[in-house]
């Protein structure tokens, strides 16, 4: 198993503790994370990426226990092995498309794939030196996917990646995510409540409200 979580729980200060079901995922597999709002989907995602550390339990990615890593070791591990796609693209506006990808490479200190090839794969090669502000919503989201993929991660986490896109673009983004994850053998976790996505991924993990 590439990704394993066991008896995870997390409590925000002054709030009841959230518990998460144990689950595991192999490389190349995809899982949908479903649940009502407030059920802790984003919290679960943050625990999986090490942005939050759990009060109990642990996350193991490819043999490494995330909560055992401290400070910049954890940051570096995340940069090298986990790609995150956010709900909004959130690219660095001061940089061009290609520079956004190079920044991800610089910060992870890892010479991953070639930015040009990746942009080619995602069908936005022509935008490589475009300013981020000139991209359409769909293009920007594809660039953010490229940024999550550039370091050839073992785990890809996507938080509502399609919520702001129209049908055509949503379809394309999901296909891309699935295709690219399978290509590099990464585990893919998608948080969503988007019906269009549900039909694309068979494996589902449902979070129950506490």
């Amino acid at each position, binding site marked *: 198993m590439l990704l394993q979580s066991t008896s995870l729980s997390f409590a925000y200060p002054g709030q009841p503790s959230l518990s998460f079901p144990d689950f595991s995922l192999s490389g190349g597999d995809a899982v949908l994370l479903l649940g009502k709002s407030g059920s802790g989907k984003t919290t679960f995602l943050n625990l999986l*990426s090490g*942005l939050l550390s759990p009060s109990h339990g642990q996350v193991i990615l490819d043999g490494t226990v995330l909560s055992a890593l401290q400070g910049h070791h954890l940051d570096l591990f995340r940069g090298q092995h986990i790609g995150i796609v956010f709900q909004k693209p959130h690219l660095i506006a001061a940089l061009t498309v290609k520079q956004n990808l190079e920044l991800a490479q610089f910060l992870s200190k890892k010479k991953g794939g070639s930015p040009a090839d990746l942009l080619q794969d995602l069908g936005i090669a022509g935008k490589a030196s475009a300013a981020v502000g000139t991209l359409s919503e769909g293009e920007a989201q594809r660039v953010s996917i490229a940024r999550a993929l550039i370091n050839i991660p073992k785990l890809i986490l996507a938080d509502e990646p399609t919520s702001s896109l129209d049908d055509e673009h949503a379809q394309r983004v999901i296909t891309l995510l699935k295709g690219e994850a399978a290509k590099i053998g990464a585990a893919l976790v998608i948080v969503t409540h988007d019906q269009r996505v549900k039909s694309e991924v068979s494996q589902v993990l449902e979070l129950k409200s506490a």
Partner: protein
Amino acid sequence: MNLLTLSWKYLSFRPLATGLNVILLAFGLAIITVLLLVQHQFEQKMTRDAAGIDLVVGAKGSPLQLILSSVYHIDFPTGNIKMEEAQRISRSRLVKQVIPLAMGDNVQGLRILGTNHDYLDLYAVKFIAGKAWEKPFEVTLGAESAQILGLKLGDTFSGSHGISVGSHDHDQHAFRVTGILAPSGKVVDRLVLTSIESVWYTHDEAGGAEPDTTTQGEEVRIAEEEGTLAEGIDPHLLPVAARGFPISDQEREVTTLLIRYRNPMAAIQLPRMINSGTSMQAASPAFEMARLFELLGVGISLLQGLAIALVVIAGLSIFIALYNSLKERKYDLAILRALGASRFQLVTLVFLEGISLTILGAIFGIAFGHGFLALIVEFTSQEVVSLVDPWVFLPEEGLIFGYALAVGIIASLIPAWSAYQMSIAKQLTKT
């Protein structure tokens, strides 16, 4: 891609705010640069030009004026003194050396100074062409004078009466260039040096040829009413005095005396002796210049205060700019962390931005300072100002980089701290 590139991209992404901050800081630092240059060069020049001169003796009047006119050649002389009286002082046992000076003419605003060869030794001059004057009407040009007048060895020119441009010309007698000095950075660069006899003879003949056409109250006229020389002797052929006072059978005048003391006792006794016992006055360059700088001190402190205020405002402005842009960019910073950046890298990024801004400010500030000074020197006719060389770079200017760096670091402290302790998960969840 690295942090420096990234910080530069962020800065150039907001060119107006960045430009304003850089300019604000640059102006403050430019004023400091100008003050530094002017103060340093004036003091250095003033000290160098007065080296070896313990006391100046001249006609009664303002002591500061006496110093400015006789040592630095920037003010009008206070008048003339009788040579006989001057010679009496030179015989005092307190005096080691006396250099007599005679002034009264100029050529294109450059002063013609009558003196002896001791004056050349005082400033340790070097000749690039020719040698010192030996006969009347032979002159030695200072380096800058030669350049301004465009004269070579053997060329002739005539002087005009008075200390500044615009008086009548002495056409009767042409001076001949027999020596040109190498640049020394001292006051001799801007002088036209000759013998005291030349100055006397010029005015003898001017006085003979025309009635007393006094054009200026301050002007100095030397031995005008003395009449002509003894019949049958051509003054051009007589050698002039190379040391000490010139020899004359008539009652002659000089303008001032530069005196060097024989011993420390002289500093106490000689000025008092001259000021109370003769119709002349004595003034010490060191004392008068200290007094002048004290007077100028108020203005300098005022400008320094203004410069410091500007630098502080620039610091505040940079702080606000960093802080605001950080608020806008919290999401960016969180993304950087999610991409693998450590807290330390974010802090470095913030500091790099602050420091790049201030280093730019320092570079522009020093450039503005020198440029501004060059403009002043270029467009002013005041001789005092033209003493300053705007393209001298002082080691103290390194201090300006120090100030700028300090401003950058202080302005970045709080923004860097808030970047350090930011919670990424909270920031990313907040949409």
